[in-house]
């Protein structure tokens, strides 16, 4: 049996004014991307996760549905939910996260009248 990951409320930073499931999806995706959640790790059941995180079970259900849709977790009937062992999917997800991060940086650059490259060059300029 692979190791099971038990979540604690401290593992997530939640903004109460954004949909919670979106934030769980983002943060679990990041955990998988940086390898903190290893391929094949077993995840707690919806009920266990909701109880230990003290959130509504519907939130966890939606989180798992979305992660499953992204191919990052898989559920085997009667066995539980696991982080995918498909490294291609994990690699693609990491690339998507990188693209999203760059898009956000580009927005920031635009807001101060620079391109991303100009902003990076400026930030790295010696005094």
């Amino acid at each position, binding site marked *: 049996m692979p190791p099971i990951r038990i979540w604690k409320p401290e593992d997530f930073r939640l903004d109460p004014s954004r949909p919670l499931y979106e934030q769980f999806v983002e943060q679990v995706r990041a955990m998988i991307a940086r390898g903190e959640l290893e391929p094949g790790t077993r995840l707690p059941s919806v009920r266990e996760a*909701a109880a230990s995180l003290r959130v509504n079970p519907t939130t966890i259900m939606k989180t798992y549905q979305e992660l499953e849709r992204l191919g990052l977790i898989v559920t085997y009937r009667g066995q539980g939910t696991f982080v995918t062992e498909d490294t291609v999917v994990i690699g693609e997800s990491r690339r998507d996260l990188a693209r999203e991060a760059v898009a956000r940086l580009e927005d920031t650059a635009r807001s101060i009248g620079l391109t991303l490259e100009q902003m990076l060059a400026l930030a790295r300029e010696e005094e």
Partner: protein
Amino acid sequence: MTEPRNSDFRFSNAVDAAKAPAIRCREVTLHIKKKTILDRVSFEIPAGSLAGLLGPNGAGKSSLMRILTGMVPPSSGQAELFCAPVGPERLGVLSFLPDRGQLPPYLGAGEWLRLAAGLYPDWSEARMEELIERLGVDRGQRIGAMSRGQEARLQLLTCLSRQAPIIILDEPFAGVDMVSRESIAQAVVGELADGERTFLIATHDIREMENLFDRIVLIGNGRMLGCHDVEELRAGGRSVESCYREVFA
């Protein structure tokens, strides 16, 4: 997206049509002597929800809960549980934790639980054992010697060991220490995940509970001030707390 405030709250939130509401109030009004305690309160709680009843002291939350339990008949309007009117004959479908309720101080926790098991026809021993574990209740301890948090956990245990489909908790966190609050919140979630039960919880403790609620009902001065799906609020950039502040500030 901004939610219209004080709009037609009764119908503005689409209730999952597939699910019959566990709790429905239609224009519930309560007068005591010449005073209006509740003024045409209307809302619905779909089955399987964990709903928060929020409002300042004296808003009418406890009165509303007493109407739902059938202890006090409304002066006018209808209150229904699973589409049938509330009343003493409907006590079997709900389990109620009253505000400032007291258990007999001279009994030990185990003795109290044996007594409660005899009182309630829908008592589940298996559930009780699971909850004793989860809530960390010491059967040997005398109730009179318990802290507020320990007694609150025993009260919740009593409430949840029944199999009633509707659970109504009036201020389960009042005066309860943080660790007990956390284990109470955890036990509530554990019960909900079966999807069989519907909770209505009156609380001031928005921070502890805001991630748990899927629906909030706001009342102030006996009037309905809103009924929201919490994830919809968040999709519009609002938190339970900011909504509460806007309504009651």
